[in-house]
């Protein structure tokens, strides 16, 4: 197992380097002059040049790449044009917010998706199955952005059950920063009121973000459960008089979960990179909005840093999934 971890971590470094090189070239050959945008609409050519020199944009591309790589290795991810701060500092603020949103969303998708998949499979071709399948199809088809707006309009504005957006009420003091994730920090500091406030703010964006993943998990889990429930060992278990709940939970679900796990890993990566729309609707101050603002400002260093962090997170998540796979399935363990 340790060998697998070492090999995958080494591969990660190589892949991240490749990702960085591709991003650097793409970002720098794209049209748009970051120095001009940073200087402002009325700036003279001389003022634009001042900023170009200040940010090292006057140097040849290969030289800039070498300088950039050197900086990244020492932990310096550059300075953002649009926030004026060190990118590392920005990421330390925005990434935990996105991670919290994604973890909550994927948690929601798992907690709801797996039982619904099971219910659909157990009630195969009955009313519950049909309703859940329609729900799953609509989840895949429904644009997240639109769903977010609808949830916001109905649950937050009309029913006033949830706040419209943001991470906390404007006048609430955030808990002492430990992880940067408000719900976790509130719990760690024992501030339950802030925890509930943070969860209330988290719920609608997480629900919007989780919907496509929820639908996928339901579909995969239902299909796997159907297949598993028709296996001989399940029939055998039923013949032995084992209760239905035990058959589903202890015998069928464990096997059906393996493909679902792979789906969860993929969805996690997709969610990390796809939060921007939900963050926009709910004013969630995460890396999605940060990267989007950077992109429209031709602010390359934040874009590259975000790509790097999201890429690394995606790879780590998949490594974790593979390890879980190995832990759950002795055949996989034997191949490692």
């Amino acid at each position, binding site marked *: 197992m340790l060998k697998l971890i070492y090999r995958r971590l080494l591969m990660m470094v190589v892949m991240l380097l490749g990702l960085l090189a591709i991003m650097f070239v793409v970002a720098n050959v794209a049209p748009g002059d970051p120095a*001009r945008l940073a200087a402002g609409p009325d700036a003279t050519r001389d*003022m634009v040049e001042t900023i170009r020199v200040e940010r090292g944009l006057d140097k040849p591309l290969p030289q800039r790449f070498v300088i950039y790589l050197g900086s990244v290795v020492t932990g310096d991810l550059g300075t953002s044009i649009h926030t004026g701060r060190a990118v590392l500092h920005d990421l330390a603020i925005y990434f935990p917010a996105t991670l919290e949103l994604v973890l909550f969303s994927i948690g929601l998708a798992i907690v709801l998706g797996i039982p619904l998949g099971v219910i659909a499979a157990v009630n195969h071709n009955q009313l519950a199955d049909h309703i859940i399948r329609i729900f799953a199809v609509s989840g895949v088809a429904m644009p997240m952005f639109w769903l977010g707006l609808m949830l916001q309009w109905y649950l937050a504005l009309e029913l006033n059950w*949830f706040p419209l957006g*943001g991470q906390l009420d404007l*006048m609430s003091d955030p808990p002492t920063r430990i992880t940067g994730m408000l719900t976790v920090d509130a719990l760690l500091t024992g501030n339950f*009121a802030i925890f*509930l406030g943070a969860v209330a703010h988290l719920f609608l964006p997480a629900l919007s973000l989780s919907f496509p993943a929820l639908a996928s998990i339901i579909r995969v889990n239902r299909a796997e459960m159907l297949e598993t429930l028709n296996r001989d060992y399940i029939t055998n278990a039923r013949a032995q008089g084992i209760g239905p709940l035990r058959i*589903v939970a202890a015998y069928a679900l464990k096997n059906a979960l393996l493909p679902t796990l792979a789906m969860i890993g993929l969805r996690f990566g997709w969610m990390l990179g796809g939060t921007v729309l939900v963050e926009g609707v709910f004013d969630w101050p995460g890396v999605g*909005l940060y990267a989007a*603002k950077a992109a429209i400002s031709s602010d390359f260093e934040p874009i590259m840093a975000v790509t790097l962090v999201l890429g690394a997170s995606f790879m780590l998540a998949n490594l974790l999934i593979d390890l879980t796979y190995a832990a759950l399935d002795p055949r996989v363990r034997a191949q490692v």
Partner: protein
Amino acid sequence: MRIDWNWLRSAVLGVVLAVTAIAGAGAVEKLDGKLYLVIAGRQPVSTLDPAQKYDYAIRMMEQALYDGLVKYEGNPPEVKPWLAESWEVSDDGLVWTFHLVDNAKFHNGDPVNAEAVRYSFVRTLELNKGPAWMLQDFLAPEGIEAVDDRTVRFTLKKPYAPFLSFLPWWFIVNPAIVEANSVDGDRAQTWLNENAAGSGPFKLAKFEQGKAYWLEVNKDYWKGFPYEADNFGGIIYKLVRESAGQRAALIKGEADIVGGLTPEEMEKIAEREGIHTTTLPALTAFGLKFNTQNEHMSDINVRKAIAHAFDYDGLVKIFNGEAKLQTSPFGDAIKGKIDVAGIPRRDLQMAKDYLAKSAWPDGGFDVEYVYVQGFEEERQMGLLLIDALKDLNIDVKMTPLTWPNMVGRAAEVDTAPDIIAIFATPVSTDPDAVAIQYHPTSFGKYYGSHFLEDEELKGMIEKARNETDWSKRQPIYAEIQERIVELQPEIFGMMRNRRFAFRDWVKGFQDSPIRMTEEIDLYPLHIAK
């Protein structure tokens, strides 16, 4: 097989109820018994340093945290005394002397003196960023002198009539604080991104980048306030990035002012109880700029033909009538603006006559129209253009681009498109602020994508800006406006109104057309409740 999920339903319901119980709406934000006014805006404040950059959000915050020698107020906008209680200018227009008020203090209690004014101007000029372009051709750091504690003198390199009109955007920083926070000779640029060193009516209470920016009333403000509201604590500028979110925040009471809603949203929200809306004239002009050096657009008859074929009524309808067609390249609030006779309106016969005189009398060519990706109004303008030019047998290729890519293409004559959708807001009411957009010094800037070269126009613009006597400048600017229309470097479009919606308890809103899109003068704003 049946499984009892009732326990799970109960648990989920319990958690949801507990969470939603604390998610109620508040009418006005309160902190320590004080009322806070919340503005929900879309643009983040990327810096608070008056010498680095400006846009509407930055300018709104800076004007609350800092003071200038003078300030724009009113409609029409007038330059009013502020830190400078009076000033005089020499007969040759070269020497400007300002006399400061004697009671102005920075937030830390230091006096605002002539040396602070000199230091602030020198810092901006030497950093060569933000507003530096406004004065750098006419004012050198050595031309600024603190004569005594309350007198500062500017000696210009050559006369520059609009000098005073740009001063409201040159804010005074506290030299002691700037020097104390300077790192590696950066003159506190990094520190001032998220901190303030001013003397303005508000102090910076909290700067949460990407979320909200908190201003606290400066109780000791040297100029006092134009209202009495002891329970008013300050203003919070909160980021809400979607207009649907802005509207919802206003309805729910999570915001007290929002700007920039679509005309349809404005209509709907005005029907709600406790909310009122306003539409105000602005200086922002919209034009479809031609690249006058491109193959087809270099022919003035083609430009005239397109300008006469365009559907101007359709343009105003895109904004639900909340826009006014331009009658001159200059906006209404620009000094010396005239209504130029013969400014094109839709006249298909005239359009065909012009095209007949061109090198392409039967049309039969394509033009490229570039606009901001995702900007619905600009897309609709492109559709208007397609319809209008069908009658001339000219095809329009619509190219949506992101703003950086648009700016990149507009910067060079070889890449600037045939037609580009441009909103431009002058930062001064002096006619030079608009006229200079048609001078070769503007090539490379997004509004200079016309690449118009005309020696006569260039000469007039230069003559007018160096002339100090308004009675002599005025006729030159009348000629400049006529000449620009004659050369037709663009379809002169419309002046878009500014749109705001408020909760009824918001008081003190004062408009001036000089303000950018969603910029608000925060000084007189407060809550009466």
